[in-house]
């Protein structure tokens, strides 16, 4: 075991896959010599060579589209969109081709590739550097979309994503890249995609969150506990497919659910999760299934971000309201 943060765990997963599978290549903007703007790919080019870990021209559609070409000819590209907001120029490739090639060709060609996207706010960054675009990808048939919140999960889920025979959008909560440290096994292991995890068992309410919101929820639970409330916390981990089973079991037990996402509200992941709760646990509900999400506004520049980002206090206040409903 070795203590790692998210950046180190992701780097470790890439290193392991590059070592054991010659078909894996890693590329994107600044991922080679510089090791990525967040240093996630640091040292990998020196270890594995410039043909396998390299800087590409600065064009996200080109990065995604060329990766599809590599993937259908048997390679396993792991590409990086430097920031969440820079994935938008690649939408045509991701939505029109990468997600559809297996279906379009009746399985003759598959697209085993991973698109890594550092995402989310709270890092005092420029515009287009703090977005939460997971709903766009989750809404797109043919993509798996996953988000780890811990170094342990990040390593195991990235290895699983690279080994997956289909395209996986791997979103990395950049706000907690270096904030969370954890003991992580040095050897290879993988964590099946599509499974949520109960991080903390509780009795009165279920909180469903993912990514950087997990940490905020955990802080909120400390406050709630002082108020005498018992809260169950689920780390969704997979935006698509959604783990219906874990969610419905939990809400049937607690009778209340609060979904916390940084993404804007309308048509977002929280709406989807609440629909599932309604379908699966309607008769167990003791309070309206509720969401606490980003606003349907553009996420503000750093001076205004405090109003957009969801604080532990706001989560705790919703917990109290729903338990007392």
């Amino acid at each position, binding site marked *: 075991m070795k203590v790692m943060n998210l950046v180190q765990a992701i780097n470790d997963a890439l290193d392991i896959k590059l070592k054991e599978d010659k078909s894996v290549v890693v590329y994107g903007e600044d991922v080679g010599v510089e090791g990525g703007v967040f240093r996630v790919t640091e040292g990998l080019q020196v270890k594995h060579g410039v043909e396998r870990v390299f800087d*590409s021209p600065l064009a996200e559609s080109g990065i995604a*589209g060329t990766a599809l070409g*590599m993937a259908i*000819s048997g390679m396993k590209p792991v590409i990086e969109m430097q920031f969440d907001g820079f994935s938008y*120029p690649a939408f045509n490739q991701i939505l*029109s*081709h990468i997600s559809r090639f*297996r279906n379009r*060709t009746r399985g003759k060609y598959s697209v085993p590739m991973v698109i890594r996207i550092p995402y989310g706010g709270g890092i005092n960054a420029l515009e287009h550097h703090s977005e939460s675009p997971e709903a766009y990808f989750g809404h797109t048939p043919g993509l798996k979309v996953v988000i780890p919140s811990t170094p342990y999960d990040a390593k195991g889920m990235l290895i699983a994503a690279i080994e997956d025979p289909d395209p996986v959008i791997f979103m990395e909560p950049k706000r907690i890249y270096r904030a969370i440290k954890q003991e992580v096994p040095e050897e290879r292991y993988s964590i099946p995609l599509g499974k949520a995890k109960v991080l903390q068992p509780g009795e009165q309410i279920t909180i469903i969150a993912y990514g950087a919101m997990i940490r905020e929820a955990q802080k909120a639970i400390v406050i709630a506990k002082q108020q005498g409330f018992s809260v169950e916390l689920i780390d969704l981990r997979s935006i*698509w497919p959604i783990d219906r089973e874990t969610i419905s079991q939990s809400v049937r037990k607690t009778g209340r659910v609060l979904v916390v996402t940084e993404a804007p509200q309308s048509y977002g992941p929280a709406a989807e999760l609440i629909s599932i709760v309604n379908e699966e646990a309607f008769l167990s509900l003791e309070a309206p299934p509720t969401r606490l999400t980003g606003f349907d506004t553009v996420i503000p520049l750093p001076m205004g971000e405090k109003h957009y980002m969801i604080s532990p206090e706001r989560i705790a206040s919703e917990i109290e309201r729903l338990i007392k409903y």
Partner: protein
Amino acid sequence: MLDQKTLDKYDPIHNKAYQLIDDEGRPLDKTWKPRLSNEEILQAYKDLVFERTADFMAVSYQRQGRMYTYPPNLGQEAIHIAAGLVTQEQDWLVPAFRELGAWLAKGVSLKELFLYFKGSEDGSRFEKANRVLPISVPISSQLPHAAGLGYAINYNKEKDTAVFAYVGDGGTSEGDFHEALNFAAVWNAPVIFIIQNNQFAISVPLKMQTKSINLAIKGLAYNIPSLMVDGNDFFAMHEALSYAREQAVAGKGPFLIEARTFRAGAHTTSDDPSKYRTKEEEEHWAAKDPLKRLKGYILHSKIADLKDEEELIKEFKKHIDSEFEAAEKHPEYKVEDMFGYMFAELPDELKRQKNAYENYLRGVK
């Protein structure tokens, strides 16, 4: 034969298309000899007649209501037949959507083509065609795939292998066209980009598409050898494509060909060209028809008298009809066909949606 000197002479900046035969099929240079044998030339003629016949038949099936929207190839066939001869088994074909003869040469069956335009994904299965990508509907978006395939060829050290990627004149305005050219050039990828400049992007004429003096010139900025070719001259196309492939597999990177041609038919069966182009324009290009020119060459060179063309077309029609009938007999579209190819393994959520719908269907029966 093309060489660097000729390439310099036809630098796109001079805005002159590379051409070997005139509108009647006579060689422009009396000393020129094609690199193909008489048998190969005769076969190319037959393949061109076959493509044209299949294309006519496809339009008529559509008119009979037996097939949906279809994009005719009429007038552009020399490009496809020449490319079919040059493209090898191990090469990748990255189509746009109007390259019928090139697909057939790679082993795509007419049944599959008809199936696709009858509305089934099974038409993109390409059971006997290796390394052919399916039709790409969003314009130009297929070109980055070609650059990626080229990277993979280099990465896997595959010998004697190239990628043939197609786009139309309108496609050169898309960002993906430029990104693909740039990636392929930076990666020295063995990709031959073929722009079929048929003068119109549906209804929009070339002069509204670009202010560039031609489309080949767009390759120069990326340091890609680029050549404008008379796309209705089978021999010029064959020579240019052969040269481009030789360069690509010799490790010299991508090549760009602008094939100047004319879409003699409609954009698709849903389109009416009389709205946006003149009779004069159509007649001007009809005089340059690729089949007429190839036949002219064969007749002038006394390779064959071509008297059995009607017989040939009759034979072709029988075969084409049988392929269409096979497409019509294709099994009905099942629920499984919609869900079954989304992922290698169907995720639980899709199983749930599929089961719910199937239960509903069972209840209805």
